[in-house]
């Protein structure tokens, strides 16, 4: 089956992102397709390449990156909502330079896009599962 996943909370503060990751991993291991993971609300904070957890803890951002979820064009299908991202200081190079900010923090396994990508995922997929607080 084709799954879409929505993640509403950031890493560490809530278990939502961990559970979503375990779900996605199990789905892939059992022969399903993860069409897209959409990070909304504080979920956008899962995409930071600045994240440095203690050595003895899991690395939530790297966990997501390890799933290597991409589309046929090779683009990441770990998608971060642009409006939610800007509001919370999650920037890729293009958004940073557009807004004259020095630096950026988006992990390369993710991409920033619009809310339409969430709706499209809901339409395209057999199931959409939401993980939140």
């Amino acid at each position, binding site marked *: 089956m084709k799954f879409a996943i929505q993640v509403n909370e950031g890493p560490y503060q809530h278990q939502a992102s961990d559970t979503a990751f375990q779900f996605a991993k199990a789905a892939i291991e*059992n022969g399903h397709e993860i069409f897209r993971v959409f990070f909304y609300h504080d979920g956008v904070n899962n995409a930071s390449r600045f994240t440095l957890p203690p050595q003895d803890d899991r690395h939530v951002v790297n966990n997501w990156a390890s799933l290597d979820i991409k589309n046929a064009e090779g683009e990441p299908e770990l998608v971060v909502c642009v409006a939610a991202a800007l509001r919370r200081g999650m920037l890729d190079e293009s958004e940073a330079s557009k807004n004259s900010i020095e630096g950026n923090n988006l992990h390369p396994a993710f991409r920033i896009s619009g809310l339409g990508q969430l709706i499209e995922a809901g339409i395209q997929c057999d199931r959409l599962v939401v993980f939140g607080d």
Partner: protein
Amino acid sequence: MLHTVNKSSFERNSLQSCLNTIDDTSVILFIEDGVINAANNANSSMIADLAASGRVFALQGDVEARGISPKLADNIKLVDYAGFVDLVVEHGTAVSWV
């Protein structure tokens, strides 16, 4: 439908809201702090009938993490993450009571 509940009914009203609108064929899966609802406690009566009809599941990893394994209420079925995926496949639309 598959209804996931991720909070304790002692802390939040999400389980009650789920029970208010769950139809006769849907199942419930407790995840995260929702597994506190799978323990034998003062709120167990909320889900006893649904559990008796085999419609209540709990995520095993979350149950173990909270030390609830020896306290599990009757008729709760444990699943791992692969079992979670299977439930989503089998039961159609997933509703998250976040």
